[in-house]
């Protein structure tokens, strides 16, 4: 039986390290780390010359190097097909062709709507008459309301 989780040595796992995108990220990191070392050394010299802010920045540059390494790890493991405009295009394509399999609830999706609003949005999506009536009520409420920067 095949192992469902690819092992670290499987070709699929190894491939992500040598895509064009990954190589760009590797090169960026290889330039970033020495750059941070040079900047740190420069700030140590500033500190030695009597400027106390130099000591603060000489502590921070190694920190930037550590962050750079963490970001590098994330960027290498990203799936570019799920990012930004490309990700949205892929989703729209899947929606249009109906390839979209029912997904589990995405708990990472932004939520700033309460449950009531969510239930209303779902009910409106199912019932166009309800949606039209709510739009009519909203238009009535909008009339005569002073315009503020919030009410666009």
């Amino acid at each position: 039986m095949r192992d469902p989780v690819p092992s670290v040595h499987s070709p699929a796992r190894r491939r992500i390290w040598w895509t064009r995108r990954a190589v760009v990220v590797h090169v960026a990191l290889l330039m970033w780390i020495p750059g941070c070392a040079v900047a740190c050394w420069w700030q140590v010299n500033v500190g030695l010359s009597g400027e106390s802010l130099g000591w603060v920045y000489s502590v921070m540059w190694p920190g930037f190097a550590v962050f750079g390494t963490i970001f590098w790890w994330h960027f290498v493991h990203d799936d570019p097909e799920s990012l930004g405009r490309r990700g949205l295009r892929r989703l729209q394509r899947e929606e249009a062709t109906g390839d979209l399999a029912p997904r589990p609830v995405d708990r990472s999706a932004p939520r700033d709507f309460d449950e009531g609003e969510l239930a209303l949005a779902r009910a409106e999506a199912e019932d166009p008459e309800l949606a039209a009536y709510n739009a009519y009520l909203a238009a009535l409420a909008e009339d005569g309301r002073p315009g503020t920067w919030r009410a666009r």
Partner: protein
Amino acid sequence: MEHTVLKRYRVMAYTTAVLLIVLVFVAVPLQVAGHPELATVVGTMHGFLYLIYLVVAFQLTRTLHIPVGRTILVLIAGTVPFGAIIAERRLTAEYSRQARRAAKGLPGTASQEA
């Protein structure tokens, strides 16, 4: 995603932005004029708070599926006067766009902006 990820980012964006504006437009001119005290204090504060900004900004760009190039712009924005304020407006708009999409039951949270 929790709303707190956005809130944390917004707090840090405004804090670092205001400190940087004070540093660049008040403290540095004072330093040039021979009063380096304020620059030392504000510079130190901005320095350390920027490290926290980096952490919370990265967290938010990950949750919003922001591509690498724009992520780096958001991170650098904390070192440019007014940059963090612009980044905050854009990310907040992106957040509510994705929240609306999620509320409509549409799949995915990929950003719609270049």
